């Protein structure tokens, strides 16, 4: 029982990362029907920006708490800006082009980001300062660290904030309108281009938070870290029903749990077989994902 619960705790922790990154996939897909293959790499870029910021601030002997806050903020801003720049330069000109063209562009951007970081930081691992300790508390013979609690709580808070933003603010309503019908939204006076950029900013900033948290939690980062995580986060978004924000959260946690149980009870080598196997099974039974609504496909 206690090992089972231990896996649950681990699964929720990993799931937090997946969920945060999945939100970006789902938001972008929701408004422009693009699978943003570069999104996992924005997560990676976020981790590197955070690493650089922390290093610089540590050298400047800033108090630790302040340094962390600044690092998070810097990473969110820089990655968000990068996301906006990518949307403007690479995606928005192709919105009326065949959908595969923009998909290939996204793959190209992904390759570009990975190799850009490879050139700038090298192929080896970079190490975050060991700030998070193993201290924590025991519940039902399960050890839960404060770091794990913090990660899950932070991601929950961010998701809740996003949900409220999308459903209870004027801009959020405009976003949902845009998701349903871009042309009608434009005719209603919504600045579609800026709203798309805002969506990219939010998605990228959330990925950056996940990236810095991942760096702090696992301490090792490299240029390729966004690939596998991005793939699983994307799977999470589809599992939950792509385009659906609560769906992405649930999907993220489900994939995290699946990974923890798979690794715990069978072998971590087979993780992706479980992940994709479950995804395919779910889609065969419910083709729109767990919480997906029927979305009219753009002809």
């Amino acid at each position: 029982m206690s090992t089972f619960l231990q896996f649950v705790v681990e699964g929720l922790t990993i799931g937090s990362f997946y969920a945060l990154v999945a939100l970006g996939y789902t938001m972008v897909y929701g408004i422009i029907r693009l699978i943003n293959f570069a999104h996992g790499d924005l997560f990676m870029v976020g981790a590197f920006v955070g690493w650089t910021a922390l290093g610089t601030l540590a050298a400047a002997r800033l108090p630790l708490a302040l340094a962390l806050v600044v690092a998070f903020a810097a990473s969110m801003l820089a990655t968000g800006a990068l996301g906006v720049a990518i949307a403007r330069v690479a995606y928005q000109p192709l919105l009326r082009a065949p959908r595969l063209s923009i998909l290939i562009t996204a793959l190209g951007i992904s390759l570009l980001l990975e190799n850009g970081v490879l050139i700038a930081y090298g192929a080896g691992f970079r190490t975050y300062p060991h700030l998070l300790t193993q201290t924590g508390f025991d519940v039902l013979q399960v050890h839960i660290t404060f770091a794990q609690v913090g990660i899950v709580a932070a991601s929950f808070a961010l998701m809740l904030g996003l949900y409220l933003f999308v459903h209870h603010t004027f801009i959020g309503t405009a976003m949902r309108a845009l998701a349903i019908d871009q042309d009608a939204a434009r005719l209603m006076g919504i600045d579609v281009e800026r709203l798309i950029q805002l969506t990219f900013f939010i998605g990228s900033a959330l990925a950056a938070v996940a990236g810095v948290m991942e760096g702090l939690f696992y301490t090792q980062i490299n240029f390729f870290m966004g690939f596998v995580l991005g793939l699983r986060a994307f799977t999470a978004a589809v599992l939950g029903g792509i385009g659906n924000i609560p769906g992405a959260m649930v999907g993220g946690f489900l994939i995290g749990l699946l990974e923890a149980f798979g690794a715990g009870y069978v072998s971590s080598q087979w993780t992706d077989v479980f992940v994709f196997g479950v995804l395919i099974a779910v889609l065969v039974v419910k083709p729109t994902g767990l919480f997906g609504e029927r979305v009219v496909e753009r002809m």
Partner: protein
Amino acid sequence: MRAQASRASGRTQTSWLVAIVLLAAAIALPAFASGYVVDVGLTIITYAILGLGLNIVVGYAGLLDLGYAAFFAIGAYTTALLETLLHFSFWATLPFSIVFAGASGVVIGYPTLRLRSDYLAIVTLGFGEITRIVATNLDITGGPNGIYGIEPPSLFGFEISSPHAVYELGMAFFIVVLLFAVRLGRSRLGRAWTSIREDEAAAEAVGVATLRVKMLAYVMGALIGGLAGSLFAARFGTIDPTAFTYLQSVTILIIVVMGGRGSIPGVILGAVIVAGLPELLRFLNLWRIFGFAVALVALMLLRPQGLWPARIRRAAPRPEEEKRAHEAEAAEAQGKESAPAVAIADSGAIDAVAARETLMQVSNLERRFGGVRAIGGISFEVRSGEILALIGPNGAGKTTVFNCLTGVIRPTGGQIRWRGEPLGAGAPHRNVHRGIARTFQGIRLFNHMSAFENVLIGMDHRLHTPFVAELVGTRAARSEAAEHAALGQRWLDLVGIGARASEYASDLPYGDQRRLEIARALASQPRLLLLDEPAAGMNPTEKHALMAQIRRIRDLGVTVLLIEHDMALVMGVSDRIIVMDHGEIIAEGAPAQIQNDPVVIDAYLGTAEEDDGPDATDGEKSLWS
């Protein structure tokens, strides 16, 4: 037009000549190039084969596949395992590679094809990853180390192991795949793929078995992937899972999209660039892949359709086929007056019309959408040879009735009998094959296909030639195709747009698009034609012509069921009218009867209590005028 055709065929000849010269140069490459160039050349050939295979899925059928490397892996592992474990010769492993890869195409295709196209991306990606992980973790596949010691193939006692010989083997495979891909694209299957890419629902509604056709795209793509895998195993003598990653799938996809989806020269060009450019960029060292990524993004921004976009496919009947059509017409003109009609219609249908048999019997048909009862248990029959109109205010449930009759939606109650047999709730294309064709309320043509091709799609399920014979191009296949083409041209002539056969459907004026939709539906030689508001948006002259046309269609032996709001047209053309309101039939009878039915007038105009008297009579006048 004739001159244009010969100019076009002259251009085709030139491009064939260029292609053959290039191919000959490629074959002769080892004679004058260095070992390094030959090696890169073989890599390009391998990618070109893979690109041509994926192009069937992505380019022809418009489906997404992010796990194509799985088929490549299955072919490679099949050859490697059969050679090393069971000591098969390379050639003996080939059929197994192809069959296993094809079977996995079914495995991946069957459960996933009902999914939306974007979901297909992740499922195919998952399939590719699962294949790779299985290969990495099983003992029999050698785990991460893969399989060593695959014997080189031998031919007539000569061992194909030198780089030059392997290159020529690859070239031979490439030529076979190239011919296969070209023939496939021109076959009826290729046409069906294009129609699905254009408008899947419309394709289904004109008789394309969309699910099967989509699955065949995966299977055909998989066959080629498997073959490429065998070649890969023979070339290196060793394989391991790192060759079959997600990045490999993405690379192949980039080849197809960058080159130009559906365009064979484009795909080959894409392979040359993707496999060759990084070699040329070696001087960039670490910046190499970065440079490639920048080039890729820039290319897609500048040319979203790809470097060498696919040209319009076969646009019009060949001159000799056109001649055949005109000869047939001339021969008929000499015969009796009704002959042209009879000659293109199903002769059984004419007899049925004469017998006035009950074509379709609808009893207690009901359809609910959640709590809404769109059709509330209606019964009516359609008799052979009549023109029956279904009218009623907006929202009365008319189109829902059509959708039930054509199998697009499943009724929630009641029964439909078609020529005495219950009409099972199968896929819509089955109903087309049974003889029920339809047009759409909003025009749904295959926009980027010629008018002629639109009609051919409607006829394709009537072809008898076996598929293999069509690919090989036997005499019988060619002769049937020519007849088919001639007949297609005549359907266009029948609706009066024969001269525009080679134009894109989207380029036709509105009225002609409507006519083309009717021609496409007629091309399936239906017994019952369902027309959903055919006069919408037409001017009075066009409406008049449409009435004549509907009568002419009936004279062909085709029964017509019509939804229409234009009362002049309905009253002028129909033998019988059914009036629906709120999902119920409120009146049924001859036009004169319906015109004076107070219930019908109420349904359209409201009762006298609700409206002012004078207004109601005004409305009545305008309604029946």
